[in-house]
């Protein structure tokens, strides 16, 4: 069994790392939070003092950090993975970043014999806990296949999407399309309610019609109709995370010169919503931008 390193023991990382431990992998961990590291030492993991140390002592290094800047810091910053680069080392980055990040790092690490894999996840803390994540993978196909057992301890659908960056692209594409769909559902239900149609009745009919969607099916009853829109912490997916994904989509589209009219608008709407302080509410809270103006307080 490979020796696995895990960098980033936050909301998602801690749950994913626990599944690796449950599967009997030997873990070496690093996190900027001492408390997070301590809790894993208690579970039998070994501590490392830096990403460099993690890379020195393991065969496969997993990352789960909030942003591109952290990924770059861990990869090529001071005492980063690059300082311990050696032939055969594998890095699997589960963070959600722009496709250009893994593409660049993949090129930078290749001459050292290190394979960089982008493998962002979908399914939230619940999916991480239950090991049912969808993992969208990009990078060297043969290496990905060798790592499949590791990924299968954390996720249910392991989807190989193509060369470096393809995993990130798929995640960003899915999430921005879901973000637009959230706006679609928000406008549809606000218009229906303002016109006097009972929202539950509207849901009953629309869910079986051509406007049905995962977003409508999963977020309307549980968040909107249950009037749990403003709750924190968000049960499912925080608004600020959806906003982040939309910003990544706009940036990725811009880099590829792809027009993104509805995606750009959705990003703006989520920015406005986050600016109102709703960042830690469910991503469906953006519906309040419409509902507040029309005067809907309870659904």
């Amino acid at each position, binding site marked *: 069994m490979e020796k696995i390193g895990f960098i980033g023991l936050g909301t998602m990382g801690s749950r994913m790392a626990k599944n690796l431990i449950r599967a009997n992998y030997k873990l070496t961990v690093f996190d900027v939070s001492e408390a997070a590291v301590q809790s894993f030492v208690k579970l039998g993991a070994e501590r490392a003092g830096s990403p460099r140390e993690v890379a020195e002592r393991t065969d496969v290094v997993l990352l789960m950090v909030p942003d591109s800047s952290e990924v770059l810091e861990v990869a090529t910053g001071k005492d980063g993975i690059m300082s311990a680069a050696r032939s055969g080392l594998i890095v699997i980055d589960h963070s959600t970043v722009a496709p250009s990040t893994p593409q660049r790092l993949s090129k930078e690490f290749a001459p050292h014999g290190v394979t960089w894999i982008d493998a962002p996840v*979908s399914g939230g803390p619940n999916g991480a806990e239950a090991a049912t994540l*969808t993992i*969208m993978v990009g990078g060297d196909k043969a290496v990905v296949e060798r790592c499949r057992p590791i990924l299968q301890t954390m996720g249910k*659908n392991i*989807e190989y*999407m*193509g060369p470096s*960056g*393809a995993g990130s*692209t*798929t995640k960003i*594409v*899915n*999430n*921005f*399309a*879901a973000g*637009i*769909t959230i*706006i*679609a*559902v928000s*406008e*549809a*239900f*606000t*218009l*229906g309610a*303002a*016109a*006097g*149609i*009972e929202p539950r*009745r509207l849901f009953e*009919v*629309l869910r079986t*019609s*051509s*406007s*049905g*969607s*995962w*977003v*409508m099916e*999963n977020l309307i009853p549980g968040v909107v109709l249950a009037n749990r829109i403003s709750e924190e912490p968000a049960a499912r997916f925080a608004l600020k995370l959806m906003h982040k994904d939309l910003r990544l989509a706009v940036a*990725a*589209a811009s880099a*590829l010169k*792809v*027009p*993104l*009219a*509805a*995606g750009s*608008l959705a990003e703006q*709407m989520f920015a406005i919503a986050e600016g109102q302080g709703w960042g830690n509410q469910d991503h469906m809270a953006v519906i309040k*931008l*419409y509902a507040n*103006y*029309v005067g809907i307080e309870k659904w």
Partner: protein
Amino acid sequence: MTTVGFIGLGTMGSRMARSMMRAGLDLVVFDVNPETLRAFENEGARPATGPAAVAKQVDAVHLSLPDSPDVIAVATGPGGIVEAAHASLTVVDHSSISPLTSRRLAQDLAAHGIDWLDAPVSGGPAGAAAGSLTIMVGGKTEALERCRSVLQTIGKNIEHMGGPGAGGTTKVVNQLAVGIQAMAVFEAFTLGVKSGIPAERLFEVLRTSSSASWVMEKLVPAVLLSNREREVPAAWFALRLQHKDLRLAVETASGLKVPLADGALSEQLYAIAEGLGWGNQDQVSAINLYADYVGIERW
């Protein structure tokens, strides 16, 4: 034998009328096209000289007309249905018109003792021919119950949504969400494919993810992946009809003072597409607003 009136024997109306006749109903019909009228006469329907003449002979007059002005003229214009007002007369409007117009017409007709049902349909020409339409009804329960058995000859799901205008509102709301979600699909697939992910593979993964929708599930394989979006006549739903529905949504929202950021944007993009001459192509051809710029010719 039940006798009903049918005014407007176009693409949808002709199929609905024929489904009614096949089910054993006796039809009194009118259409501005004399050839159409003659064809129906040859099939056993009784032609009338105008809307009032139809209304005089029946207790229910079904309409399937292109736009609000047509419905207003047939209902309340010179030679219109009001001139033949009698007890227990009901107008059943299957046209897609503004729900606000429907509400006004319902009031105008009520003044003459005529009941009104807005009953727009979903399911296209195929659904009309097969008698399997979804019919979203607004109006009095008693009126719907009187007309239910006739509606069952053309529709499978008959959904009572509320008072006058509620049927039209439901249809408009559904089409609004469809129009925006279509944009989500167009942008997602353009960005994904331009990033190097094959369209079929992207579809495979997105359809099981949070961006999944009926629009993606039905239209991507049948139209997009088969590269049939520019075919005329339209495979599924003509672009100009989706544009019309989005215009209705914007109009309705404006009348009710409901913000419609993404709906308004979608309407604009469909207007651009229709202005380019794509009106009779499938609504999916609006993806070419993106694909043409990015250089994607086949999916």
